[in-house]
Every structure is written in C-alpha cells, then in structure tokens.
C-alpha cells in the first residue's frame, strides 16, 4: 500500500496491495539488504489471543511479513513463506505474519490463515501502528528478516511469483542469519511461541 498520487494513477498497474482496483503484477518488489540496524520492538496479539513481542524472540531468526487478506500478491507469497518456515523452523526460524486488515476485512483473517496453511503465528495490526513503524510507505507485502541479535538483515517489499532472484536473496539472508548449523548462539534467551 502506498500513499502517493502515482499509486493512485497506477492503481492497477503495479502491485501495491489492496489497491482500489485489481492488483497483481507486483513490479513493486525490492530486495533491500541492510545490516546492523536494530529492529524496533513491538507487541501484538495473535489470532489465538496471545501477545507476542519481537524482543521475546531474541536468539531466533525472525521473518516478519506484513500482509492483508485484500492483498493478492501477499496471498501468492504465502506458500513460499510456509515452505521456508517448515524447512527451517527446527534451525530457529520464526515467521510472524502481521495482518494489517481493517474493520472491513479482519473477520476473514483466521479463515485465510487456515486455508493458506499458515502454521506460524498470525498477528493483528489493525491499528497499522507497527506497519507505520516498519514500513511507513505502507507497501504490501513487506518482509523483514531479523537476525538472532535483533538486527535487520534484509527488507523486501512486494512479491512477484517466479521472481527467483528475489527469492534467492531472501533464502540466502535467512540461511546466513541461521548460521551453518542452524544452532543458536550460546546466550539464547527465548524460544518461539507455538503458532
């Protein structure tokens, strides 16, 4: 999602999600490898009523994915995130899928999460306050990878099915953060909550 007038003019042309008209072509993705910057902490409720804070996951590699049920590219991206999570959860990967649905569509989140087999925690950011903190331009999907020390190691916005290069960058960043053995460093304080 984005604010600019160009997005309005381009509404259907590029995949800013939840556009006023159909979305899909996702020319919007950006791989943005960063390093060193601390990921800001947040605290959100899951679909199951628990609270999860990012700081409680220190010692894990966390993939934060902002999505919404009205964002078609987000839904297309979900099988890949599920696959990534299932292949690497034992090595310490945690996926937090943050739904930014508003009052109109939040009722659909749990259904979509179930039918897309989202076996990781699904958090609700109905206020869009965490979205604004991480991704003020508001584009969806928006993905960040946070290493075991809480540093952001990759940002990616948008999703294009078949974008092998972008997917390679994401996988490489996650694997590098997990380390060769996937073993967490000695001082690992917390474990991921159950989905």
């Amino acid at each position, binding site marked *: 999602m984005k604010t600019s007038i160009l997005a309005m*003019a381009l509404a259907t042309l590029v995949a800013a999600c939840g556009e006023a008209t*159909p979305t899909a072509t996702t*020319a919007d993705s950006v791989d*943005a490898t960063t390093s060193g910057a601390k990921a800001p902490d947040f605290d959100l409720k899951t679909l199951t009523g628990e609270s999860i804070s990012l700081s409680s996951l220190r010692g894990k590699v966390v993939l934060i994915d902002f999505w919404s049920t009205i964002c078609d590219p987000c839904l297309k991206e979900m099988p890949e995130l599920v696959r990534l999570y299932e292949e690497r959860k034992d090595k310490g990967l945690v996926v937090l899928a943050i739904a930014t649905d508003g009052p109109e569509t939040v009722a659909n989140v749990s259904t979509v999460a179930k039918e897309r087999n989202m076996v990781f925690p699904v958090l609700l950011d109905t206020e869009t306050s965490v979205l604004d903190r991480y991704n003020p331009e508001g584009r969806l999907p928006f993905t960040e990878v946070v290493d075991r020390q809480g540093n952001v190691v990759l940002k990616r916005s948008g999703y*294009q099915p078949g974008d092998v290069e972008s997917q390679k960058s994401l996988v490489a960043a996650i694997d590098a953060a997990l380390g060769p053995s996937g073993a967490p460093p000695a001082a690992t304080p917390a474990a991921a909550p159950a989905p």
Partner: protein
Amino acid sequence: MGVAAAFAGLLGSGSARAIDVPLGNESMTLDVSNTSDLGYHFDNRNTPPLDPANPTLSPLQRLDDDYGDWFDRLQVRAFYKKFSFALRVDSAVFFNLLDREGTQAYIREKLGRDDLALENRFGEELQSHFGQPLPGGARGVIYPSKISFGYKNEFLDATLGDFYLQLGRGLILSVRKIDEVGIDTTIRGAKVRVSKSQAGHRVEATGFAGQFNPIRIDYPTGRILNGSGSLVFPGSPTPSDFSEWVPNPKYSASSPGAEPEFLFVTKRAKPSYLEDGVVGANFTYGTRLFELGLNGVSVLRQSNSAEFELCKNRPGADVDACQASYPAFGQVGAARLHDQIRNLSATVNVPSIAGVGDAYVEVAAQHQTQGRVSSIGPNGIVREPDLTGYAVYANLNLHQGPLAATLEGKHYRRFFPLAANIDAGGPPFGAPELNLLAYSLSPRAESIYTEPIGAPDVCISGGRARLDYAVARERKVYGWVGRFASWSELDPTNSECKTDPALRTDTWDTAAGLELSSRDGNSHYWGWIGARLTDLAVPTLLNTEQTEPSDVFYREGYIRYDLGQHLKGPFSISMVGFHRHRTQALKTWTEGENLLALNYNPSFSFIFGFEHTTREGFPNTYFNGAIAYRASSRARWYHKLAESVRLFVGQRRAALRCVGGVCRVFPAFEGARIEVVSRF
C-alpha cells in the same frame, strides 16, 4: 523547499543504509525514506461542451487541466533503547497554474466576453484548492504531518504526538492508514497503554486524548485541507484571506467620476476543516479461552454554530466576517449534526472454539448531543435534537479440514460514523473531496469490491455466509451469499431510522471465486464473479421515464480476474482486470479496466492498460502505459536513491475505487507521472 534541502543533505551525506549511530553503550537506529512524485496534467476530458442556452464555466473542470504538481513525503524514524521518534513531512507544489491573465483569456475565448464574477470564482477555487502562493506563480504547502515520541517497555507503551488507534472492530473508533484512498489519520495527543500478563490472565488498559489529524494534502485530488490554526498542529495549512475586484453597486455610468467602477474587497479566510477533540479509554481482560473488552470514546466537535448565529443576529452584522470568526459549515450531512458524540462498546472475543473456529461479538451504543444550532430567535435556541443509536456486530469462523466458513451479522440503528468536521461545500473555502473522512469504520459484511449499501451505519440489518473449500493445495473455490434489509439506502437522511416499508430495500449480495496455481507457484489463475440485487419493498416510480412502479432498485454484476503465467527464465506475463455492469432507474452502464504486464524479474515491468465506461457524460475509452523499475540490490548508492521508480503515461477514468470496503471517487487523469522511492 525544506524537503528538498533535507533530501539533498541526505544524498550529500553518502548515507548508504539504515544507520546505527553510537550513543554510549547502545546505538540509535536512524531510518530515512522519501517518496517523490512529479506529474503533469493534460486535459482530462471532464469539461462538458458549453450549453448555448446557459453558457457558464466550471472553474475546477478547467483548473484541473494543464498544470504540474510535485508531491513529496519525507519519513524519518529513530529508535534508541526503548525510545522512538517519528517525523513525516509532507509537501506539495503546484506549478503552471492558470493565472489571472490566463483566466481572463480563457473566459473570453469560451464566452466571448469578460465576466468578473466568474473570474473571481476561478481565483477563489485556485486559492482554496492549491495552497499558498510560492515564488514563480506556483502554489503549495509544506508541513510536518506526523510527529511522535514513544516509549515502550514490557508493561508500558506511551506515545506523545501522533498515534494510530482502533477500538474493537472499528465501530466506535478507527484511525489508521488506508493510503490507497488517500487516508492516513492519526490522533495527535497522548496515549498510554499498560498491560500485564500472569498465570494465563492478561489485563490491558489504554487511555488517550488529543485531536484528530487527517493528512492535509489530498493526494488523489491535490486539495489542501485548511485547518483553523489549532495550537496542536503548528505549521499545518491554514487558509488565507482572498482579495478580489468586485463591481461597485454605487457606480453610475452617467457620472463615472463620482464612484469607482470596481472595489477591491477582501474576503476573510475560512478553514475547510475544524480540528475535533477526542478522549477515550479501553480496558481488556483475557485468558486463553476468551477476551472481554470495554471501550469508550467522546468526540468533541467545534462547530461554532451558536456563536455564528449570535454574531449574525447582531445589528449591522457582516455575515462574511461572522463566518470567518466563527466558521460553521453549512453542508454538514446527517453525521455531522451534533458536536458531542459519546460511543461505548463491549466486545467478546473467543479465539478458539474447540480448535475449529473463533467468534467475535461487539455491542455498541452512541449518544449524540449538543446538536447544531439552526437559529437563535425570540423563541430561543433551536438545535438538532439529541440522537441515540446502537449497533450489534457478530462474526463466527469455522474451519474443518478443507472447509472454512465465515459468518457475519450486523444490526445497526441510528449509529453514525464519526464523520470528520469537513466543509463539504464548494469554493472558495470548502473541501468536498474530503467528505468521506471519518474517524470510525464499521464492519459491513457485504462485498468489499463495490460501494457499501447506502448510508450503511444508519439503519440496516443483515448478514453474510461465506464458504471456502480447498480442493487441493493449488485449487480453491469459494462463494458467499448475503442478505440485507436497509432503511437508509433509499433515504440516507433517515437519521431516526424509521422502519416504514416504503423506505426499505432488500438486497442479495453474492459472489463466487476460483483460485488455481501451478505446483511450482510461479503461475496462477484467479477469478471472481459477483452480483448485487436490490429490490424496493414497496414498488415505486423512481423517475419520470418509468410508466409503472417497479420493485427493482438496482442490479449490479462484476467480474475480477488475476492471471499470471511464467514464460521462461526471468520473464512472466500477467493480466488483471475488473469490470462491472449496473442497471438502475432504467439506466444501464458498464465500466472497467484491464492491465497487461510483461515482467522481467526482478527489475522491470512493462504495463499496458485499457479502461472503458459507458457512463453518461464521460469519454468511453482510456489508454495508458507504465514502466516500473525496482532495484535488485542495495550495493550502490543509486540503488538506495532510486529503490523503485515508476513512470506512467496516459489516461485514467474518473471512477469509484474501493479498498477493503472504503470507497471514494477518484478524478480523471490524463498526463504523465514519475514516482521515485528512496530508502536510506
């Protein structure tokens, strides 16, 4: 421009990423991004041919042609230990606008004569729409749109400045980002949230107070929203007085020296937006089994209606000066007739029902008091009477194996959205494009792809059932059917919610969809088809062309599709489209759009678009093209400077566009735009 200077400074610094600045034993993270959007508008073909019988010109239909604009948003985020700081600076510059001489020439060309009153209307529209004068004949505004300081630890989350907030499912308060329709509203004030979890029990309490803060630049239209100068919003746009030449009523052509022919008068500035105050709280208690919530909000509108009436009634009063001193908006609508609104709600959330579902219920009440003063006279003060309403919303989700069911029901009576205090009137000081701004958003249950059933909060009952079935991992089908009875669709002013059958409309809202994907996930074929059938409970003549009463109010059908095919290597092709067809009151129209894109992953997309409409008074076809670029890495400085670039050339039709159920009409566009997103 300040933004440009800041931007240049950032470039000059050679900053290459989100920056960690060492501060003591910790470091401060600085995150800077900027979106810059430059465009030029040609004739968007919305000016109708001149009516020879009544030749007149609409200023806005000319002023939205042949000019350029530049929008910029600079976002700065800083995080240090448990503290955070956020600043957003918005700016807009409009150039090559129609000046006074250009206006005179245009009027002469079209009408064959001078028209000072019309010329003044052009000037008034120009000033109220495009902000303050800048050097070189340009206009614009720059202001700090959002600023906040935050502190967060395990128990406490405190914000001073701007914050987003939603209580429950938004029935009684929802201020959030819906950028696609130009909405980004916060509350500027203070918010404190405390929470504590222990032994499976969790308690959370939130208190807040402040003033609502919508974005003052309406990006879809370029309209600047001028406030009344609240101290809470330093630097925000405010209106300026308007000076113009008007004919002198005392002038006589027979004695031209006695009085000047024209007088130079100044109209006092009036805001198009009055800052509304809000105070509220939330208390939530939850366990693993359920969560209970209590929410309360009190909105204090400043309407000045009583002060305005008193001022106006003074002997020899200058009404224009009274309006400027005590701005009171005339066209307020049914949702803006009271200055104090108290909303309360209670929520119950059951996150898991035996592992196969979840449920949510919200019951809300609304009391509106301090009605607008319509007159003050010998019989005392005449106000809008108090109004009390309520709303009930319930949602049940069930999942079992490949099946998922979503049930929603609603029952709303005299329950109004918290409409923003916008002057929805015309020039010189109104901002009708912002009429949709509201500080709450109710769940609606009907389709989110077309407009909601009319005046959806005021008087409606109904519900929807949706069923999803995953045939396989790559194949899904779904469908829904909704049934609604509304007493406010036919008559949106039915604020008392009279349930007279003559006011009732009955709606079937239904749709079905199919999703197919290839096994590797690189190709997909999604399609939706939907219909809305709305009948009148009592057959009625809806217009003069009808010969017999009909029980059909309208019929609407739509189709959406989203197809993507991987070709080879980095190439893929995709096509998306949305088309709708509607029949109402013997009139039928069709509109829609289709986009075809060739993608060269990961960096380029080449897009061709086609739009059509058969709506009366609009051109039928529209063509456009776009190129979108995204940086494939961040290895070089220019990747950060131009993280993504989009170039659009062509036409777009004026149309209603809906995002997640929030709909607004976008103006027609013809021209070129380029947008650059930078992230440092």
